């Protein structure tokens, strides 16, 4: 298997951009990624593009979105395909791109994601998200994604003594981290009191437990590790990548306090990288709802399943803790443009591992290994990546 390196990455700011559609968002991220390649890159040498997207503005261009976007940036003849696994679409685009390079078939590919969520009404948005879960039973119980994650949270509280306050600690931390991130949707802090007393959504969640609707795009440029130094002296290596599935519906799973897809994807990624959870210096994890970050701590091996709230109490996952999680602000505060999220995490890690986090206050120092984790829906799919900085001798 060939080694895989990231040589460039770019993303739009996440937020609400009525003046930009999927094409404009994608182009902005792509051009930023191209510009980030230190020694330059001839776009015509790009061989393939894998673009994650759930609905492209709720069905605006469901079919053949990838060639539409590539044609918009002067690459109409590239082998381009849309990748869809709900909220993990970007992660699976990155995974597919990494496999394409690792196989030796291609040397230089684009992994990207884009979502335009703010063009549609909130009810149409909820429709599109809802039909990415189990439509026949979960949805017809009157539930939503928030409702499904709420079932996990209530059970976690019952089994492990997690408190309402712990959920809010995730939101407070991630909002604090987003303040210094120029790419984040919500660059403002919230207090624990605010986070615990928001408008109810699905018990035990209030609005501060939920990620927002977001417009955004992210683009990552991958190449065969053998040629990475043609492009930059500071590549970031993708040392491990794993992806897995689970039953789509929550009622089909053995447990609801752990995501089997995450555990399997993480095991694959750690094995390939030859390292373990204790080697990870920082991580970007999928916090679509506050409980999701708590589940991730256990499933990624940062602690035992059921003990995640102690990491929060100790401040271990804060920016200045021993294992910063979601330094970007996470899905909660950086934002969650569905298809873009998985690639946006890779952009954040690429910048951090090259000491280019823009604002010095948010730069994680002396990091060698990082991990990103992207979940589809309530855990029907998950992808995990392990990155290693490449400027070491």
């Amino acid at each position, binding site marked *: 298997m060939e080694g895989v390196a990231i040589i460039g990455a770019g993303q739009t700011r996440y937020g609400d951009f009525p003046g930009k559609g999927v094409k404009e968002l994608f182009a902005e991220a792509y051009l930023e990624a191209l510009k980030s390649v230190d020694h330059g890159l001839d776009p015509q040498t790009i061989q393939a593009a894998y673009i994650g997207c759930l609905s492209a503005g709720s069905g605006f261009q469901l079919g053949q979105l990838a060639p539409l976007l590539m044609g918009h940036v002067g690459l109409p003849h590239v082998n381009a395909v849309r990748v869809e696994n709900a909220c993990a679409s970007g992660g699976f685009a990155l995974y597919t791109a990494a496999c394409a390079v690792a196989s030796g078939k291609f040397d230089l590919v684009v992994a990207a994601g884009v979502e335009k969520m703010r063009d549609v009404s909130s*009810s*149409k948005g*909820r*429709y599109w998200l*809802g*039909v990415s879960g189990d*439509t*026949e*039973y*979960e*949805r*017809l*119980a*009157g*539930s*939503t994604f*928030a*409702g499904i994650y*709420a*079932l*996990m949270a*209530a*059970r976690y509280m*019952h089994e492990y003594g997690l408190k309402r306050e712990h959920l809010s600690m995730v939101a407070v931390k991630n909002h604090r981290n987003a303040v210094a991130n120029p790419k984040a949707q919500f660059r403002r802090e919230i207090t624990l009191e605010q986070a615990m007393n928001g*408008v*109810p*959504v*699905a*018990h*035990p*969640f209030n609005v501060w437990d939920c990620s927002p609707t977001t417009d955004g795009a992210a683009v990552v440029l991958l190449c065969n590790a053998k040629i990475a130094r043609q492009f930059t002296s500071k590549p970031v290596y993708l040392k491990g990548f794993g992806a897995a599935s689970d*039953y789509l*519906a*929550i*009622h*089909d799973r053995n447990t*609801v306090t752990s995501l089997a897809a995450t555990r399997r994807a993480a095991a694959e990624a750690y094995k390939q990288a030859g390292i373990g959870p204790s080697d990870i210096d920082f991580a970007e994890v999928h916090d679509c709802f506050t409980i999701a970050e708590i589940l991730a701590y256990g499933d990624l091996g940062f602690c035992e399943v059921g003990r995640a709230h102690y990491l929060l109490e100790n401040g271990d996952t804060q920016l200045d803790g021993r294992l910063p999680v979601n330094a970007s602000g996470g899905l909660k505060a950086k934002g969650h443009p569905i298809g873009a999220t998985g690639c946006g995490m890779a952009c954040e890690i690429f910048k951090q591992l090259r000491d280019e986090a823009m604002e010095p206050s948010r730069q994680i120092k002396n990091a060698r290994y990082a991990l990103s984790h992207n979940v589809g829906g309530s855990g029907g799919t998950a992808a995990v990546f392990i990155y290693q900085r490449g400027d070491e001798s």
Partner: protein
Amino acid sequence: MGAHISIPMYQRAVPQRYRLIGQRCLKCGRVNFPPKAVCKYCLTGSEFENVQLSGRGTIYSYTIIAGGGAPPEFAEDARCKGSYPVVLVELEEGPRIIAQLVNPPGEGISIGMPVEAVFRRIYEEEGVIRYGFKFRLV
């Protein structure tokens, strides 16, 4: 815009939605609900016999969907009731299923409470009222 479950699609699941028909795997003996092509327990059995589930079980987990957080096809329901509970129920035959809880108790819902299935109106789409199961406390 609601979740689109076409009339034929709903019709195909009538045995499950009206009568809680599950399938017992002829290989491992365990009960699947909703039905699968291959048993979700032994992952090999593909022959089944139909069994009618009792509808009795206990609350495995629960949530309360707030008025503003309901999916569009349940928005009117949520407006009338203010909010409605959704429960994940572990049935006495083994499977877990998800449905609404009717007549929620004033003093609150908790995990482990015994419930039984009841036949109720679920929602309306394409001019056809869709019926199915919900749960109530025993």
